[in-house]
């Protein structure tokens, strides 16, 4: 067992992540404008940007989903209870006492159980909630004749806004957790360079050296 710098985030992985970051910020900023919480840009510009960014992100998600399933990367998001308790205990207790993080990153499992569970929830609950309500909201013109009183529009718009805030809350916690462990910069760097310190079995190391030498940093 050796710790090596291994490329765990492919180019697509990183582009996907950062595009998502960018569009989520654009969507939050413009969404808050449309809702009326600020007026830093004109309403019309906010609507155009929000819609365009949302459509672009939907396209990205479609590609990402395809990529996750064809490359098998979806396995990274399989939830497990093994070690979950230890991670939870660490964040609630150990982190205050200088304990070591209980999770060791591995080649086939780069997320700790809490991360896997949260990302899965994000992908299965929050993201579908935001894009399904968003699409229904966007296509209001197609169903408004069924909703003369506007209650349907009210419901969809409120659910959409609520889902948006839930994603914003996720972003807050996500970013905060980067400050735990090695520190913010160490956490962000792999998502830029792609290389992360991973514990490899001798077999994995041998495999990488033989078949994918580019993924190992000497």
């Amino acid at each position, binding site marked *: 067992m050796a710790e090596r710098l291994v490329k765990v985030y492919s180019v697509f992985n990183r582009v996907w992540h950062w595009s998502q970051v960018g569009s989520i910020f654009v969507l939050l900023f413009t969404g808050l404008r449309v809702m009326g919480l600020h007026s830093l840009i004109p309403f019309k510009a906010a609507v155009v940007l929000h819609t365009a960014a949302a459509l672009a992100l939907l396209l990205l998600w479609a590609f990402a989903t395809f990529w996750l399933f064809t490359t098998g990367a979806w396995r990274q998001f399989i939830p497990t209870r093994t070690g979950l308790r230890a991670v939870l205990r660490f964040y609630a207790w150990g982190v205050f006492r200088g304990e070591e*993080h209980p999770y060791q990153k591995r080649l086939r499992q780069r997320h700790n159980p809490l991360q896997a569970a949260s990302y899965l929830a994000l992908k299965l609950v929050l993201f579908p909630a935001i894009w399904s309500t968003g699409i229904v909201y966007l296509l209001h013109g197609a169903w408004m004749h069924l909703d003369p009183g506007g209650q349907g529009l009210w419901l969809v718009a409120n659910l959409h806004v*609520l889902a948006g805030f839930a994603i914003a809350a996720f972003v807050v916690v996500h970013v905060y957790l980067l400050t735990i462990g090695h520190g913010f910069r160490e956490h962000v760097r792999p998502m830029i360079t792609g290389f992360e310190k991973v514990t490899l079995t001798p077999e994995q190391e041998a495999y990488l050296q033989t078949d994918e030498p580019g993924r190992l940093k000497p």
Partner: protein
Amino acid sequence: MRISKRRIALLVMAVLAGGPCLGQSGEETAATAAPAGAARSPMPSASTADHSKFKILQQSFASGPEVTQACLSCHTEASDQVMHSLHWTWDYTQPGTGTRLGKARVINSFCGNVAANEQRCTSCHAGYGWDDVRQPAPTNPAQVDCLACHDRSGQYAKADNMAGHPPLDPVPAGAKTITGADAWPVDLTRAAQSVGLPGRDNCGNCHFNGGGGDNVKHGDLSSALLNPSRATDVHMAADGPNFTCETCHVSDRHKVAGSRYDVLAHDDKGLPAPGMARDVATCESCHSAKPHPATLIGLKLNDHASRIACQTCHIPEFARGGVATKTRWDWSTAGRLKDGKPFSIEGFTQSDGEALHTYLSTKGDFEWAENVVPVYAWFDGQVHYTTPETTIDPSSVVEINSISGAPGDPASRIWPFKRMEGRQAYDTQLNRLAHTQVWGPKTDTAFWTNFDWGKSIQAAMDYVGAEYSGQFGFVDTHMYWPITHMVAPASEALDCQSCHAADGRLADVAGIYMPGTGTPLGGRIGLALLLAALAGVGLHGALRLIRKDDGKGCNHG
């Protein structure tokens, strides 16, 4: 069936929209028309007939009806057609309620009522000599006034107090036309030989001057439309499509499309095929129900079009083009005299520098405004009237007409309105609006003769045969005028945030979800969730700092 019903309804507007009305033009109005050929809108004639070559028109006519006789020798059906139109009958029965409306019956918040004031009011009738609106309009075909609409000489005019007849030689001293200009002797022969399709001035003489002066009544129909800039009216501007009124208000057998009581916002017939006739005067009739381009915003605006009238965004303000509209008329203060004589106060200066009266002994106090932001309301096209028979509640503002429409009704849209404020006479015992007789120089009951409301109201109530207690007072009234003219260029249409803002234009319009007007329930819950997350990480971070551990642990968070 549908078409004929619609046509009948549409036609109402033509007469009632323009609303000729009482007025004392000498005092009241600016002279908007000059004697000969002034203020003519461009009207290239494509006619195959040059009426100046017609023998029958090469004679000297002694009266309007004589001209009409000559017209009828060729246009054999014209009088019959006109007499079945609202320009003639001033009578409209509301479908559904069966209420008899029309200019001959309703009371409005401008000059009040026609009955007992006919010589003045019917000066804008499309006929000659209607001096008793308790009776139907005259039945003699020669009484139809062809020249009012078809004179293209520019010098035909109707006197303001001769029940529709033109001033002829010799013109009495001080005589005025219906536009408020000093009267001149009309040359009927010249007028008869000039006839053609109606121009803006023909319609405008009555419809711009309803309520006794330029732009008094509508706010969106004024002499500014005789030769408007693109900013004032993008359709009628000379450097635009240069429309006449009839371009939109198409007529068929002298029935003109458009209705004041039954307004159409929606044209379910769609765009006509090339060469096909249109019989509806809506925006959609030409622009379709999806007029915006297929961009992100254009598609969204097309969605808006089924809930928001085109006029709401595309007529951001009315009374544009430099002519103010009257916004308040308080009859209760009329009758004050100085040294026993009526007087006026000119307290409002229009943007062109003209001084407008803010008080007249004959009419009371007024307010005026230019470039007015409309009020907005759900509107299904139907307008209901407080008729002289309706029991009113004088403890609150009486709506002379009420706008029908509701947010849950697919036929309703949000429309812009001019809201006219008034104070008007009513019977304090029976709680009904009262008729008044104001014009009648030869009687001693008319208000403008002796400034006695008691006599004026009693005389008018007796005239119409209405029950009257003899006790009167004045009540606050509102009257609503759908705004549909003076369409601004698209570049000046309302911006999204005119409405999508906390204090936006539609803040008072209930029943629609409008993003941008305030944080909705989902937003408040979401905001709480976000704040909880921030507080959570804040607390967690603070605890880590307090523990003075670097708290980094080992591998990853």
